[in-house]
């Protein structure tokens, strides 16, 4: 980038007109999306609205547009809001906390803090070496990936705000309780010793400080671009398979063997979710279609949580700082939490 392309940003009007124009365009696109594709597919494309192919095609293009719009909007807003927070500030806020209140604060901060699971290990060392209790650190590490914006947006877009809110509440509850349980078990001796031998030299700098609105909007734009670049193939495949299921699989197909009455459905969903990391975007449209054909809501949510919170790559990373017993305890406690949430929702929903 040259100085010429940056010049417009430095004008006194700043980045706001661009952001306001983009917001207006987003609202218009989101509003006309259903009618637009109905018109294009059935009127222009000439497909029969009562045919299976017509239903599947209309579902695919409409859903893809809707989910992409939701992702772009929410990732941008979330990134801009989170640019006011940083792991460094979170650690300072958690430093003096005791367990209990600390777990609560850590779970909340896990949602608000920008954090990539690739930083799980330095983050873990930084927290523990600075005196944040193990259980409180765990609450943070569980909440951060579980209550993630891509998952929430997709749940909202596909199942509505009630399911998204349930998911967030349940996710926070699991992070708080699981972290607290791990803290109570006094497992500090199963942390690799080098973590405690790490001395913190130098003054940590706060990446959230000194940013202008232009910087924050640029971060939002970059984040939208990088997440979409990473997930779009999974998203298209997921929506595509979902569309096929919508068009061809009979109603209540799954109700028979994976409905709310089958207690085995939830554990199977949790186990299936573990290797499916970072494919939340591809998995959710698929799961939505399965739910439409009778898969129970608790099973759907448990699967979702397992996909994002219990990921194989993150476990391999965490093995560097956690001895196998502590890692196994972590997976077991979180897994039981997810299982409980899935079974509970299958009973009450």
């Amino acid at each position: 980038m040259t100085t010429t392309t940056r010049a417009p940003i430095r004008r006194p009007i700043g980045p706001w007109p661009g952001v306001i124009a983009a917001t207006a365009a987003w609202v218009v696109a989101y509003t006309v999306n259903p009618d637009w594709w109905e018109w294009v597919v059935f009127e222009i494309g000439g497909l029969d609205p009562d045919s299976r192919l017509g239903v599947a095609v209309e579902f695919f293009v409409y859903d893809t547009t809707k989910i992409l719009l939701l992702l772009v909007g929410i990732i941008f807003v979330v990134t801009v809001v989170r640019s006011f927070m940083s792991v460094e500030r979170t650690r300072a806020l958690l430093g003096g906390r005791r367990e209990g209140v600390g777990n609560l604060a850590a779970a909340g901060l896990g949602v608000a803090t920008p954090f990539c699971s690739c930083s799980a290990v330095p983050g873990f060392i930084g927290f523990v070496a600075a005196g944040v209790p193990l259980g409180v650190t765990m609450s943070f590490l569980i909440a951060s990936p579980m209550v993630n914006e891509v998952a929430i947006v997709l749940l909202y877009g596909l199942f509505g705000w009630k399911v998204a809110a349930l998911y967030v509440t349940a996710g926070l509850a699991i992070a708080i309780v699981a972290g607290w349980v791990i803290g109570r078990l006094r497992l500090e001796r199963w942390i690799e010793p080098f973590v405690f031998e790490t001395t913190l030299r130098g003054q940590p700098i706060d990446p959230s400080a000194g940013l202008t609105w232009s910087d924050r909007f640029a971060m939002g734009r970059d984040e939208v671009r990088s997440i979409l670049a990473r997930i779009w193939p999974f998203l298209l495949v997921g929506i595509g398979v979902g569309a096929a299921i919508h068009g061809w699989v009979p109603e209540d197909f799954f109700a028979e063997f994976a409905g709310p009455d089958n207690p085995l459905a939830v554990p199977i969903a949790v186990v299936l979710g573990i290797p499916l990391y970072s494919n939340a975007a591809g998995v959710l449209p698929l799961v939505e279609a399965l739910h439409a054909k009778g898969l129970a809501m608790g099973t759907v949510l448990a699967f979702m949580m397992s996909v994002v919170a219990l990921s194989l790559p993150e476990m391999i990373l965490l093995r560097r700082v956690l001895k196998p017993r502590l890692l196994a305890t972590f997976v077991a406690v979180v897994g039981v939490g997810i299982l409980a949430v899935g079974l509970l929702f299958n009973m009450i929903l």
Partner: protein
Amino acid sequence: MDVKVLGSGCANCKALESRVREVLDAQGIDTPIEKVTDFGEIASWGVMSTPALVIDDRVAFTGRLPTIEELRTALTGAPG
């Protein structure tokens, strides 16, 4: 000048390294970029979010990918 890129191989860490290389080459500065991938050493810099850039034993950026302009300022002490 001593330049270190801290990070364990995430996409942004590689992007940071190539951006730093680009700026150094453009300025004609022939300094090797040291890659720090050991978690213990990364954490010992007080860095909890990668990628991070250490210039002459001082953490210059952490947790995000700085722009070319920011890097030029940090690496040469003068805005481009």
